[in-house]
């Protein structure tokens, strides 16, 4: 386990006691990334420890900034549809996500 960066709190340690959830898998740039039902695409990516997934025209990395759909920093391509705000889009099992990050 990494000790730096974003992380999802496991249900056992969680004081709000979330109920049981179904796992989902997104295909992000060809690689499977696991999350749980009800998460946003940004939630799945951050929960997997990933902080950035886009590169600006000037080559600067970006991920989530505002978290509420205002800044458009978090854009991804979902199932071939470009310019989807990852922080607003509910993740669906099997979604194919293409990021703007060089691989």
């Amino acid at each position: 386990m990494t000790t730096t960066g974003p992380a999802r709190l496991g249900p056992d340690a969680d004081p709000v006691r979330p109920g049981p959830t179904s796992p989902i898998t997104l295909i992000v740039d060809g690689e499977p990334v696991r999350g749980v039902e009800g998460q946003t695409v940004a939630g799945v990516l951050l929960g997997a420890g990933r902080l950035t997934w886009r590169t600006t025209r000037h080559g600067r990395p970006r991920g989530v900034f505002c978290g509420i759909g205002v800044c458009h920093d978090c854009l991804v391509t979902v199932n071939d549809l470009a310019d989807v705000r990852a922080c607003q889009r509910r993740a669906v099992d099997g979604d194919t996500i293409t990021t703007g990050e060089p691989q």
Partner: protein
Amino acid sequence: MSVETPDVLVVGAGPAGLAAADAARRAGAQVVLLDAAGDAGGQYWRHLPAERPAADERVLHHGWDKFTALRGQELLTDAQVWLAERHDDRPPTLHVLVGPADGNERTPRTFAPKALVLATGAYERTLPFPGWDLPGVFTAGAAQALAKAERIAVGRRVLVAGAGPFLLPVASSLLRTGAGVVGVFEANGWSRLRKAWTARPAELLSTRHKAGELAGYVRDLARNRIPYRTGTAVIAAHGTDRVTAVTVARLDPEWAPVPGTERRLDVDAVCVSHGFVPRTELAVSAGCGLDAYGAVVTDENGRTSVPGVYAAGEITGIGGADLALAEGVIAGLAAANAATTSAASTSAAGTANVGVTEEQRRARRDNQRFADRLERAHGIRPGWAGWLGDDTVVCRCEEVTAGDLKAGAAATGSRGLRSLKLSTRAGLGVCQGRVCGRTVEELLHRHTGGLLDPGRTASRPLAAFVRMGELAAANHPEESA
């Protein structure tokens, strides 16, 4: 396309919109309540989604019982209002797309309500500083939203900084989401805070449960030995492709960094908020008047300057969830009253009784006074520009720097905000200046010695990003069917 004509349409299902829709329904109106999000609650009562219900959601919340009482209402979710089409003689027609966020096959719906309540809330204002575009720098609201709706901590060593009491619940949520919080830094010094918060203490009695809420957050900090520093700010974030450290410094009362007080702290995330900006796109396209702070102007019944259009909550000024609730009740009652009585009798009644009780009016007044203190204690001071470098990005979308703005103003000699934005590209990116608009305007104001056309950053024809295909389908539904 068929146009739906409810008595009252309420946009936004945060505290204000929920209260407005509930009050209007109780008054006998036929109501449609909608929100772009997937669930009710707005920013304040954001919570885990229905797919992942929590047994003890109230650990992260205040007033959860109030929310439970309001959330049972019928609500149209995933419904993005993207255009308010103005009319001279009746409330605007609202165009809505229903479906997954930023999708391309959403269902268009159109509403021409007899009365409209706008309760679209606010978003954060974060001032730029060197390195604020590094991944790992978040708005405080992002940290709060991710903690509440995803149970994600944005980092393991997190600094929370900026201005306002909002920093405290953010730190508490981070702690309850497994993050370590290295400190909470408020830009304003004790003397300003004390002056604003201790004046006329009797006035605070009616809103004393808020003091209780804040005291709870302060206990969280104390229990975890987290320093709360005043008169201190993050003035730079460092790292190559993610934030690894920040520089913090003491500020003078006008928020100018005090030389020689800089200190470096290792962090893996920093959450910054300097206040909130009312979300007024729809109100502006509906023609509603704004005040000097960019908030929608309303009378004591929540009426805007446009007949049949009401507003409640943080769209009318930043004052927290309790004020939003109080305003929502009044606007909901007034809208229901206007929609269900004939035009003649409403205008005759004027601002008179629309079914609002004296107690409901008092709740609004008391919370309004609380909001005034917020601004006096925590409002942004001009010295912050002192922590910008020429190479500091101001407009994140177009990557326009502070130096570009200065050079743009000097080179053109223009004092027009619009022409300066066109020549520098600042505020013209995909977020349409929602993040940097006010900052760009303030900086250009200083560089030009006074802008001739301030305030234009608030006007955006479309309230949301829409795809051309969806636009065409919305105009010609029969072809897309």
